[in-house]
């Protein structure tokens, strides 16, 4: 009985850690793609650098927001 409780808690912590790691992969891929395409665009049209920079930061904040959903769920799993 006690061992199955400990096992469940261990699995919960494992799940939380793996979930947070997967969220980081998702956020890294998404923001990396945004940054890369922003660099391409800035190189093509240097006079638009300010606008592109602003748009890149806004898109990165939105993608990061989604990744944070996963972090919150991982925190809830762990508690």
């Amino acid at each position, binding site marked *: 009985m006690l061992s199955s409780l400990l096992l469940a808690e261990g699995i919960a912590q494992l799940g939380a850690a793996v979930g947070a790691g997967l969220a980081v992969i998702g956020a890294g891929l998404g923001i990396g793609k945004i940054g890369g395409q922003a660099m391409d665009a800035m190189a093509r049209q240097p006079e638009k650098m300010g606008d592109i920079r*602003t748009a890149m*930061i*806004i898109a990165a*904040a*939105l993608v*990061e*927001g989604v990744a*944070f*959903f996963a*972090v*919150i769920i991982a925190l809830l799993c762990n508690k």
Partner: protein
Amino acid sequence: MKYFKRLLFLIALFMTITPAIAAEEEGGDIDLQAILWGHVKDSYEWHITDIGETPIVIHLPVIVHGKTGWHVFMSNEIEEEPIESGKMKGYKEAGKGTGLYIAPAGSLYENKIVEVADDGTETRPFDISITKSVVVLFIDAVILLLCVLIPARWCRRHKADDPAPKGFVGFMNMFITYVYDDIIEPALGKEAAKYAPYLLTCFFFIFVVNVMGLMPFPPGGGNLTGNITITFFLAVCTLLVTNFSGTKHYWKDIFWPEVPWWLKAPVPLMPIIEVFGIFTKPLALMVRLFANMLAGHAIAIALTCIIFIMASMGAFACGAMTIFSVMLSIFMMLLEVLVCFIQAMVFTMLSAVFISMARLHPHEAAE
């Protein structure tokens, strides 16, 4: 600016004070999770720091309404060991009657004030105490009012043709104009002036509260936007403003959208999805702001705690890691200030976009 280099040095100095003071201590086991949760969660007292062994704490009033009526007292009157010693705040006879104490870890209402009846059941009384978050809210509200009403007074006393103001008023003027021209007006167009008061309040409230939460000393240092109830309230405000300003075409597009008939006739699939959409958009706003700010504050605290952990591992590790931790802390704090601004901007921009989508007009829908 003439004093830019000196200002930069001062800021860097402030950001190194916290890790440097931490590096002086030596200790045993450090419970990182407890420290993190302690700093980030709400509590009935404001623990500022520890000088040596004595904690410096500001006790805050507790205002509850239980079965025995209203109780108002300072939080240092709550007994530390209520169950073992048998003494509770508000009890009439030893071991009998209702009592108030803070529920210990493992209980359903951990760290909140509970009222315990004769048979030992714990219930939550009606609790409107002035907790740490409430005090931080008051302080930040005063700061926000000062930041906004002083430039407003300048605007009332001067005409439009007068030369631009300098100093703090000029900075606030520039900031507010930037938010209006670059965030609110592109989204709302002609109706920007009508919704600008709400959206500007949103932006500056979130920005001021975020930045105050980053400061490691009072009056800052309180975690307010990392509290999901605050962001929930902001999201509810956006929900109300959006839906109460919805035009007829907006509601028509939700309940009877222009999609193929089989998506709306026998089983109203699209209308149900659209109704869910009304609630998920502010929900995303709430979780995004909450998670970003909570994670930011947690990272700032955790990086400082690295020093404590290293200190408990010996002198050499402590010295070597302190430099690394100080550099990392400065970088993370600067990143956090940027994140504060970005999160306020994203919240305001998305609220403006939602309001503009609600103000749907027929000639736009026909395009």
